[in-house]
């Protein structure tokens, strides 16, 4: 049986078609089948950014309040819905809240033929 890991460049796991994530939208993924999304993708000003679903405030704390809900209502900030920390979607810098000045951990992404891959 094929798994996502067997599709695409070696060492990269396919997540979805890159155009499935629209501007100012976010989506979580669980490529290692841990039972909880370990990373999430946001599209911000046209570009896709991948971040570990782990708030720097309490390392490893999951951030969405609902599956795929990582952004504020305006889509302008990533929010940790544990204690309200706000992060820039493109740099991962915390600009408000308990871990101000700290950063999210970036995940390397690749788009090949319109398919989005994450380094595994």
């Amino acid at each position, binding site marked *: 049986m094929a798994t996502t890991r067997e599709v695409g460049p070696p060492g990269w796991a396919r997540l979805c078609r890159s155009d499935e994530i629209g501007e100012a939208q976010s989506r979580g993924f669980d490529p290692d089948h841990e039972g909880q999304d370990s990373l999430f993708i946001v599209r911000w000003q046209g570009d896709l950014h991948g971040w570990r679903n782990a708030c720097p405030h309490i390392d490893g704390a*999951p951030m969405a*309040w609902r*599956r795929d809900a990582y952004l504020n209502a305006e889509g302008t900030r990533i929010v940790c819905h544990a204690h*309200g920390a706000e992060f820039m979607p493109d740099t991962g810098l915390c600009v*408000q809240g308990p871990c101000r000045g700290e950063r999210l951990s970036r995940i390397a992404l690749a788009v090949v033929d319109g398919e989005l891959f994450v380094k595994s």
Partner: protein
Amino acid sequence: MKIVGLESLVFGVDDVNGASRFLVDYGLAPVAVSDRGGRFEAIDGTAVVIAQQDDPALPPAPVPGCRLRKTVMGVADEATLGAIAAELRRDREVRRLPDGAIESIDDSGFVIGFQLTARRPFVLPGELSNAPGGVVFRPINSLGVPPPGSVIRPRSLSHVVYFVPDVMKAEAFYVNRLGFRCTDRFTGTGPFLQPGGSLDHHTHFLIGAPPHMHGVEHFTFHFGGPSEMITNGYRFVEKGYQAFWGPGRHILGSNWFWYFNSPFGCHIEMDADMDQHDASWQPREATASADNSQAFLLKMRSKWYPGPGIPENGDYA
């Protein structure tokens, strides 16, 4: 002072519709809800109230970024309301609202309100266990597990947990000015506080934290028992909500817990079966390590026996 507990928590949110759905999925009943906000009630009428964060009618947040705008406590009688107003007027403004409630601010900057309690009395069986040798049992042929599709509703607003920059000052306000009692304490962290008109282990828990953390850690409602709480939490997870910690059982307070992220910039808990204490209780003190705050944590396994959909080598090795 006969403060009986929390009556409502008021939040300003950026996505009223998302927050409304969240609270309904949690189990609260919407009352007069619109795109601008509304009220979400437990069985006894205690509630979460939400409004658009830019709604000019909302009181100010203690610090920017905190979405809790007001904590409303219920009191038993007019005499208590008058006594609180007189006490707080000694050093701060107390506003009398058109409905007779009063509003002021605590020593940490949280807006607090007091009203005659509007909790609706109700009678519903709590969870009973068929413990051999016990004296109280579930009725014969009544089931311990909430049936699929059954409606599970929170019964009462339980407690709120504040991050405060000066925990001793914050505690002194609730104890010396409002008649709360410390029931237990996490050393170097803060006290669990019980108001004079309640037997619950705590309605408030204060956590000393640096100023940039000032705000709310979580709030929660009581459910009818651990089976209700865990079943409701499991359904919540299946709807896509993000669990943070639990399910498990605390040591101080004994309450079952399950914490979730929320659109309120803080955690929301589901709890059940909290200890009750009276004035004869001697407060305990413990270190706030994880080992001291959870008696156990549970983990769900979706498939545990061989059969369709299970890998050949089994899923329970």
